[in-house]
């Protein structure tokens, strides 16, 4: 869309007297390879292209989303938005700045045929590993997203974004026992990500862990100490406090941490950061979806809550600066403050000392996803792979372990932190849709969490 047309749209939006007006243009192309049953079962190529118009006036937000770029289509959306605003008509003459472009490298040496061959070679390595493997599914997806953002201040920016992610999922079966295990890696990168993985190592570990899960015993339930593995284990902080630090819930006082700025909310050894600038990481972008450059935001320092994640609309409510955290799934959603790459900083404790210190507890080697109620701080997450700890040693594999707690309890109960920080990719769902995020942590020990299980812990 040409600059002049964007200016015309913005000028129409501000006649409402709005103190904020924005145009968001997006085009998106996603390619997904699904390799199953020892063949490339499906390749899909999906494309979308749309426009989001936003007005904010007196703490209220109006949003219109369409993929009809005709004059009539856009006029229709503007008229639908503005008819609900009853204020004096004001005229401005918005002129956009020079377009500032943020360019990411999208080049790759992989053709589609190369990608298929790569998935085939991974598949061929897995099947011979064990007769109990009942299915192998390898999915590779790559997304190209171009965004252009303009607002009433004259801001006019563009970024081309690329993300790629691979999933390797192995199913196991022995009589009526079923289990599955997966590996995932995602980066803001082209298909070259496929060259960055040691597949032999990954596959051997997956098969070992999958067979452990196949014969896993029911998890005992109750309150107990838990050691949580690195990488995706960081979902504990994403759920426990990340959402509660988003302006989305803080600004209206709907977060359990809304009134805790500069207060001690965590153990002194806890330091949490959200960083949208990490080079090529899954949750990174150069600008957020409001056109603000992303930042490294320190959220908790030495146990003190020192920051929130703030988007454009909530700056006024909170009297705080934007943090480059305004994100949305697509043009279909208005943006709001969201996480990027959220992780716990490393410590100095050793994994061995953590295990030795526990008489009866759980080693949650891999976590699944989770969920939180920001207003009460109650959260939960599922364990994808867990083992009991008995008398200072890792013992039997257990299934269906689920960990639940409250934000403030879990932050205070972090007792030990190792130095093996890793990040794990995921998708986070909230009011502005589903966005790619990294979660991360080193291995940690939490002194007590409620563990879901089928019988009392013994």
């Amino acid at each position: 869309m040409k600059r002049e047309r964007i200016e015309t749209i913005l000028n129409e939006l501000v006649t409402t007297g709005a103190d904020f007006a924005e145009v968001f243009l997006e085009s998106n192309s996603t390619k997904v390879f699904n390799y199953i049953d020892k063949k490339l079962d499906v390749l899909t190529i999906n494309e979308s292209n749309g426009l989001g118009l936003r007005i904010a006036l007196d703490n209220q937000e109006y949003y219109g989303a369409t993929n009809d770029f005709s004059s009539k289509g856009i006029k229709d959306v503007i008229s639908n938005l503005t008819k609900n605003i009853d204020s004096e008509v004001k005229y401005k003459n918005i002129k956009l700045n020079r377009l500032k472009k943020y360019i990411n490298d999208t080049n790759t040496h992989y053709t589609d045929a190369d990608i298929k061959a790569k998935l085939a070679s991974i598949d061929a390595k897995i099947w011979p590993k064990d007769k109990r493997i009942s299915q192998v599914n390898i999915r590779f997806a790559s997304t190209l997203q171009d965004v252009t953002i303009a607002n009433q201040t004259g801001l006019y920016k563009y970024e081309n974004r690329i993300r790629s992610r691979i999933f390797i999922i192995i199913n196991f079966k022995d009589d009526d026992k079923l289990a599955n295990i997966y590996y995932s890696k995602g980066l803001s990168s082209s298909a070259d990500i496929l060259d960055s993985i040691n597949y032999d190592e990954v596959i051997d570990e997956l098969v070992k862990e999958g067979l452990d899960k196949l014969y896993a015993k029911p998890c005992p339930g109750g309150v107990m100490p838990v050691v949580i593995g690195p990488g995706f284990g960081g979902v504990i902080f994403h759920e426990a406090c990340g959402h509660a630090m988003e302006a989305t819930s803080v600004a209206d006082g709907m977060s359990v941490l809304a009134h805790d700025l500069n207060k001690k909310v965590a153990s002194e050894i806890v330091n949490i950061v959200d960083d949208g600038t990490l080079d090529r990481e899954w949750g990174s972008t150069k600008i957020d979806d409001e056109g603000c450059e992303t930042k490294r935001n320190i959220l908790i320092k030495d146990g003190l809550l020192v920051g929130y994640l703030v988007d454009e609309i909530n700056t006024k409510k909170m009297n705080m600066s934007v943090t480059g955290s305004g994100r949305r799934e697509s043009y279909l959603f208005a943006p709001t403050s969201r996480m990027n790459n959220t992780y716990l900083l490393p410590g100095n404790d050793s994994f061995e000392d953590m295990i030795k210190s526990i008489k009866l507890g759980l080693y949650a080697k891999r976590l699944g996803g989770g969920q939180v109620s920001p207003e009460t701080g109650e959260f939960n997450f599922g364990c994808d792979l867990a083992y009991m700890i008995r008398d200072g040693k890792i013992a039997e594999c257990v299934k269906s372990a689920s960990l639940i707690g409250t934000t403030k309890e879990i932050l205070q109960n972090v007792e030990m932190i190792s130095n093996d920080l890793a990040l794990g990719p995921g998708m986070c769902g909230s009011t502005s849709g589903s966005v790619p995020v990294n979660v991360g942590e080193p291995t940690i020990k939490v002194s007590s969490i409620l563990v879901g299980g089928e019988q009392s812990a013994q």
Partner: protein
Amino acid sequence: MHNKLINLAKKSNIDLEINESKTESVDIGVLNKQEKHYQVTKVKSYLIKAIKDNKCVKLEVESLKNPEKIISNIKTILDIQDNDNKNYLSKGNISKLNKDKDVTNYNKVSKDLRNLYELKDKYPNLANLELEYEYANNSITIKNASSNLKSSDYYHVFAAGVSVNYKEKSKVSYITYFAKNYDFNGFKEEIITSLEGLKYKLNSTSLKTDRYNIIIKNNIVADILAAFVSMFYTKNIMQNESILVDKFNKKVFSDKISIVEEPFSESAIYRKYFDTEGTKTTTKKIIDNGVFIKKLNNIEYAIKSNESETGNASGVFNMHIVSGNNTYDELIKELDNGIIIDEAMGLHSGIDVKSGNISIPVSGYLVENGVITKGVDMIVLSTNIFELLSNVISVGNDMSHSRIDVLSPSLLLSNIALAGGEQDE
């Protein structure tokens, strides 16, 4: 533009049809007495099905303005995809255009939602009422030389986050309520029921880890069942991705459980007459008194399994556990002593559809001598879908309103594990 694309495809010996979907929606958000956001959405999207030499390709696009690129993408996929996925274009004529006779007055909607905060007069512990309303209308057209299929339908949906405070404690309850019409009073009743329940929940405690008789409320059963819908699909059974492999025509659940799909029933909130491939949807029984009798498929897997098409290429609509005879209150009396579960979190991470295992945090009430006495929270439901739908004592008659794809009445179950934080004495 449709004809340009179809004709261009013909030149490459590709048969092609275009499924055009138009969605229009209005969404209003209110927090307490203030309107927070208003969103209007108008989008058109196309699902293109292309067939050449017994291979089929499907693409989703939002514009047909570049037909050459679309054909190029189709050819790329045809070259590289291994799957011999025979398919065919849709046939027949259907025209089912359900139009909303009422015109929604969005100013009234906003006012109704904002006025709900007056409930604080009767429920002084009410802290926040975060409300959302959406009206959505979707129309679909599929055209090719042998078919002319058109359908449209609409729904209203309300959602609420109801939070209460008392001294240092706070509790939140979430409601989603779908309706065919602007059933604001039905939604208000749901909020009042929630507020009555939250009085107990402010005094919630955990439980001892043990097995209990429980009632799972209709909306929670619907959410759990929805997570497992893929287990009924022929594709997943053939690819060893379903827990129902080798279980066809076998008893898998209690004989009190029958599951049907009625996509265009008069009682359905949102009706579906054909799927995204143009196959007519059908009323069908999937589970009959506990026995798995019908697999779901699309054209590709109907051909591969030599079964008739079921019209489920785009999922399920109005699939539900068949109602029983007991009201919710009667279930509570029958429970006598046990737990009611009416809230659940983290289903996307706590449900493993490939093993059937369920481990999700839940909350609800303690029932003693047939009466609710207090709230319970910080507990985890630990079970498996087979156990959940086998240990059925009674089925309620209170069909849920929280989804339009999968619905359920409340279920009274025996001997289900709940993990809690209370220790043995």
